[in-house]
């Protein structure tokens, strides 16, 4: 029996401990936030609605995170990728980190790794690189945040403006990112597919907005973003299926 299937039962229990930790930490801060919200005079029903909306919102992206576990499970089994994606992890980091560590021993990330030293090194590299924020934040975040708070208290209007600007910066990055298309498991999903997906999501959101504002369908507020996301994802399957391959796999060439 291979290393990754036989010796991972104890890792499963580690994963459960990690999961419990995340639940405890999240619950702690949620409860504190509820208390602070009440102290600020916020409506409790608003806070509860935030919980519901966020739960719905998180389902589909969480399924995508589950798929990252699948990618890594071929070489590392289920439990280590599960632990890594539960804390700090992100596909953009975990896959390169695992690849880098596996390559030291001549392995690739697509093959089962039964060498215990290689497996151990992969675990160390995946962990060591990802803990940088956990060292930096306790050291300097308070000082950084206090400067932001000072600015917020003395420049209230500008503070909101710049907060919105930050969000817009991030959104703009992903709007542009749609041009590049993507690749997954060796299959190219071209620029046209990602642009159409983005536009579909935007159109659905506009329709939801009209229904919420004009037809007063208030319950839709909780589901507008998940709806736009899911419908756009479904349509990406349709676009990819029915567009000619030369169009569906075409990626914007760029100048470089």
């Amino acid at each position, binding site marked *: 029996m291979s290393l990754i299937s036989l010796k991972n039962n104890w890792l499963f229990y580690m994963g459960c401990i990690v*999961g419990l930790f995340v639940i405890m*930490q999240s*619950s702690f801060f949620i409860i504190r*936030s*509820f208390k602070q*919200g009440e*102290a*600020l005079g916020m409506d409790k029903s*608003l806070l509860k609605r*935030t919980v519901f909306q*966020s739960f719905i919102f998180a389902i589909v*992206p*969480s399924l*995508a995170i589950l798929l990252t*576990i*699948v990618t890594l499970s071929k070489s590392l089994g289920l439990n280590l990728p599960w*632990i890594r*994606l*539960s*804390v*700090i*992890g992100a596909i*953009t*980091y975990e896959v390169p*980190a695992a690849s*880098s560590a596996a390559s*030291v021993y001549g392995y690739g990330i697509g093959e089962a790794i039964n060498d*215990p030293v*290689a497996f151990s*090194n992969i675990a*160390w*590299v995946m*962990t060591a690189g*990802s803990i*940088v924020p*956990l060292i930096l*934040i306790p050291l300097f975040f308070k000082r950084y945040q206090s400067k*932001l708070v000072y600015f917020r208290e003395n420049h209230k209007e*500008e503070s*909101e403006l*710049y*907060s919105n*600007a*930050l969000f817009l910066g*991030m959104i*703009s990055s992903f*709007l*542009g990112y*749609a*041009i*590049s*298309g993507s*690749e997954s498991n060796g299959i190219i999903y071209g620029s046209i597919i990602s642009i159409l997906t*983005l536009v*579909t*999501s935007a159109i659905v959101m506009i329709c939801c907005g009209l229904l919420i504002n004009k037809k007063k369908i208030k319950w839709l507020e909780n589901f507008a973003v998940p709806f736009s996301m899911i419908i*756009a994802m479904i349509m*990406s399957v349709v*676009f990819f*299926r029915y567009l000619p391959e030369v169009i569906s796999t075409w990626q914007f060439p760029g100048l470089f």
Partner: protein
Amino acid sequence: MNIKNNYDEKTHFYGRLWMIAALLLILAVPLSISIRLDSWPTLGEFLKAYLPILSLFGPIALIEITTYGPMLGNAGTYLGFVTGNLVNLKVPVSMNAINNAKVKAGSEEADVISTIAIGTASITTIFILFIGVISFSQIMPILNSEALAPAFANLLPALFGGIGVVFISKNYKMAVIPVIFALLVFIIYPAVPVGILIPVEAIISLASARYLRKKNLI
């Protein structure tokens, strides 16, 4: 002011405690693997794999803290950076919650909303991952099917198309320069890592907002 200051002070205190606990727990994982398997990589083997990763993701971590920290809020930062998956879940869920709650971005109320959103999303992810792992053989053939592959490959455009419409429609003047810049960057060099572009776009967006404000255009 006293309530807020006390809350912020305690948030930093608790946030640091939880973060240090998370650090110890996370380090316990590879340590337990090495002990259990009695297999220890040499320092050379570790550094050979680790240094390239650190050289790239170390600066990115610093940039992410300075960029996402203001978006996530105080407690949201301590929580979000422990649970990870910032760009594809924690930041969007925070943005969405703040927008739906109709509170001012950057305000104390936004901090509360953001923390609740991030905490809820973290718990949701934990449960979904747990269910997925224990029912792996039943769920994975469906999720991993060729038919659904385009859907998950295009998750980010699907997510940000809808969110983008909401934010841009409310701040369309501010959005012009950052959107045009992003489009130009990807037209010129489509392979640019989006994680590197985000902080650049943040700076451009801030500068553009400041300029428009000075010209009384917003």
